[in-house]
């Protein structure tokens, strides 16, 4: 089949939204399909948002492709008679974050009109698709709430998950993730003030600015946690990451209200490691179940410390939960075979 995959980008900004397209394209190619990846620049400038959407709407892939798979918003405005959406998020500032105190723009007539136009365009162009998939129940629920559109959850798998596996059960709780405030690495560091056991914490991941990493290092320093916390706050290679997961005690993933389960929890699961997360981490809870393949606690340093200690003291529990983490991935059918079958059906 000739498949065009279309997504939007901000030039020179990488992220999950771009990787999922590359992985999907590579997967389809290995299965013998002809794939064209189409990345279109899109700016979140509210003053030109509607105009830019019109621009995308006027583009045409036409009959050269048997199917168009659209991902990052608003690539789905491209018309195609065989359009399938793998909807990964809204333009959130105009949707669920509109009521958020940190909304960057004023609530005025002009922007309310932009919001209304965006929603109308979304409703019309999403509805014309042959099928709508989302990457999580959280996103699916939003699509129902704001657009009245039903969808099916189609969990994104890891690229080449066989790179991940269990090697040993170490002493470290591992948090691999971009270092950003809403990922809350600070809670993890604070938790280390309260642990009773010799459990350790390792943070890996780059930050967009040095401010947050500096803050984290400061907490470590001021509390004398240098021997307990390793801050590896830079970009690490895929090999280093796989090795870190393979040898950790358990993984941590505690973002605030995340849309999806997040690749770190999936990488941990393929490495047969338990995942500690929090009640308010959103989509992570679709994968991680308390006392099954991990622990779900309150988003406080004390509660986290208790989870760290518990897995340190009870290594069999950590091992067993890790085993079930891998099972859970199978249970949810998070595989490329399933993704390809659904997107091309």
């Amino acid at each position, binding site marked *: 089949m*000739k498949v*065009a995959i279309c997504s939007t*980008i*901000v*030039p*020179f*900004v990488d992220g999950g939204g771009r990787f999922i397209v590359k992985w999907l394209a590579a997967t389809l190619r290995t299965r013998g399909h*002809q794939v*064209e990846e*189409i*990345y*279109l*620049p*899109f*700016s979140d*400038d509210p003053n*030109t948002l509607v*105009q*830019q959407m*019109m*621009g*995308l709407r*006027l*583009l*045409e*892939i*036409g009959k*050269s*492709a048997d199917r168009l798979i659209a991902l990052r918003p608003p690539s789905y405005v491209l018309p195609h008679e065989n359009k399938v959406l793998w909807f990964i998020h809204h333009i959130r500032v105009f949707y669920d974050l509109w009521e958020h105190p940190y909304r960057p723009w004023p609530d005025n007539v002009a922007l309310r009109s932009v919001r209304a136009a965006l929603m109308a365009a979304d409703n019309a162009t999403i509805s014309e698709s042959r099928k709508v998939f989302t990457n999580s129940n959280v996103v699916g629920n939003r699509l129902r709430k704001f657009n009245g559109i039903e969808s099916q959850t189609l969990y994104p798998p890891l690229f080449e998950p066989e790179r991940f596996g269990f090697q040993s059960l170490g002493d470290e709780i591992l948090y691999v993730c971009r270092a950003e405030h809403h990922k809350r690495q600070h809670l993890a560091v604070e938790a280390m003030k309260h642990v009773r056991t010799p459990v350790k914490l390792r943070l890996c991941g780059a930050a967009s600015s040095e401010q947050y990493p500096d803050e984290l290092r400061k907490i470590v320093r001021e509390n004398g946690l240098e021997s307990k916390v390793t801050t590896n706050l830079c970009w690490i290679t895929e090999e280093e990451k796989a090795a870190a997961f393979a040898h950790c005690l358990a993984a941590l993933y505690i973002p605030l209200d995340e849309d999806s389960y997040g690749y770190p929890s999936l990488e941990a699961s393929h490495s047969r490691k338990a995942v500690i997360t929090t009640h308010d981490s959103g989509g992570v809870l679709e994968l991680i179940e308390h006392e099954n393949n991990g622990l779900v606690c309150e988003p406080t340093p004390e509660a986290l410390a208790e989870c760290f200690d518990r897995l340190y003291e009870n290594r069999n529990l950590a091992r067993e939960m890790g085993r079930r983490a891998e099972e859970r991935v199978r249970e949810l059918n998070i595989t490329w075979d399933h993704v390809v079958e659904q997107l091309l059906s």
Partner: protein
Amino acid sequence: MKVLVLNNMAPFVRGGAEELADTLTAKLNVTKGVRAELVRVPFTWDPPEKILDSILSCLAMQIDNVDRVIALKFPAYLIHHPHKTLWLLHQYRQAYDLRGTNLTNLIEDKCSDDVRNAIVSSDNACFVSCRRLFVNSRITQARLSQFNGFSSEILLPPVTSQDDFQNTGYGDYIFAGGRINLMKRQHLLVEAMAHAPSGCKLIIAGPPESEDDGARLKQLIADLGLHDRVMLDLGFIPRERLAFYVNGALACAYLPVDEDSVGYVTMESFYASKAVICCSDSGGILDLVSHGQTGLVVEPDAESVSMALTLMICNPADAKRMGENARDAIEQISPDWSNTIDRLLA
């Protein structure tokens, strides 16, 4: 410095321009202090009024987080950016030099007039806004000056991977590579084969621009009963396979109508020490191919082309001599990437 390369795309079709855009991006990325990315904007010209949509679409786009833009083709070069350098590979020729020929989809009616006017005026507005105007050949330069009144500098595109093209001997076939459409006139070669001696073989390899373009060629071969002497390899041709065909050919043939540039097909053939058969109206190709020296330049009709094929087949020593000259010729003019990039970023 963050440099965005802009090109257009016809989904699932790749040709010289795509190759150039990929290589340019890769070469920019290994240039000190530069990060580069390529954006390809889908372009539809059928029916012609869709061109208006494409123009509007590009004008409506916004590019953030980019210091420089290097734009190659219509209509992608219309996307606004305060620091845009144009490296014009060709304009939408159907609105310019091809007007009034049977090779344009813009006929003489009101609708086509509107589309043509929109193309010309959006082109002019874009060219004015560019920091610098480079073109890929003398022909493109002349057209830009004649139709739009803009002067420009010639910047010849280097061959993308010239090391792949190395002579492996002179076989018994003529090779014709490149995109397949009416303008590249592969059909003329097939027709010529009907008049050529029976020992003459032809291989045509490349992506047809449309299904019709491929089907037409197949039909012609069937009608002329040439299937045992003309081999078609239609579709995207991986680099290694293309090089295999070129490197082992007796000579190459490339007969485009008034081509904009010297053409990758020509340059690759020259690197592989192959003489090139082209036509007297092949445009930029004639900058490189000189009759009797590095190839044969013949009239664009089946009899003349068949004469050229016959000459090559019957005089392999001549084909070889011209092929060796071709290699010398390309080595003398061959541009290199680091100078090219210096000029684009100057």
